[in-house]
């Protein structure tokens, strides 16, 4: 149970969400974080070397 309390202290989910507001654009920080994470993951997936790719090319 204490683990849950420590986790809850670090990530308090029982509070009002934080929002960013600019002109007509309104987005929660949580949604923005997920979108940024998706873009970063997409770029990493494009450029990160895939394990065994060089070996497969050499065997071809």
């Amino acid at each position, binding site marked *: 149970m204490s683990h849950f309390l420590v986790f809850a202290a670090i990530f308090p989910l029982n509070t009002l969400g934080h929002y960013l507001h600019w002109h007509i654009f309104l987005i929660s920080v949580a949604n923005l974080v*997920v979108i940024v*994470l*998706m873009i970063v*993951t*997409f770029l*990493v*997936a*494009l450029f*990160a070397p*895939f394990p*065994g*790719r060089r070996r*497969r*090319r050499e065997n*071809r």
Partner: protein
Amino acid sequence: MSTTEIDRQWTTRLRRRAAGKLPPEKLLPDTQPTYVSSWIYVFGVATLASLVVVIATGCLLAIRGPQWWHGSYIGHFVNSLHLWSVEIFFFAMVIHLWGKFFMAAWRGGRGLTWVTGVVTFVVSIATAFTGYLSQTNFDSQWISTQAKDGINATGGGAYWNVLNVGQMLMWHIVLLPIAAVVLTALHVLLVRVKGVVPPFEQSTQVAQ
């Protein structure tokens, strides 16, 4: 029964057509083309894997019911697994969508594969939305009262009432999951029939 009669049977014709389009070695291939060894090709199967967890945890929630997922530690845990597997499902599906969009994955007669993917995405959004409405808590009440105005503005509220918990639950656990799973199966079969779309430089080399 003569050979001609057997040839004319719909079962014979269907079997031959299915075996011709999708022989076992194409359905479950031993190897993949070299260009598939990139992380961007991983997100389709990641979406599929998370869908399996979504369905499995959804079945557990259906077996035990709302009192269990609201009132016990293990119920909370399975409820959280269901939520987070949905989060990973959409996360992986959106990256899969971006990857396929920028490599124009509809090339080479793969138009129907692209369309089934798009429709599956839309059906998945509806499934997730009805899931929010089926939580049986204040969150689902809030979401349904906010959503009703939008749905009613379209005229669809007369048939699809987001304030009707029973109707939304049935859509969430029966109709929409069936549609999502059938469409996903069709999408995967089409990928197997047409093969994984090659990168642009590969398809140019093939054309030359």
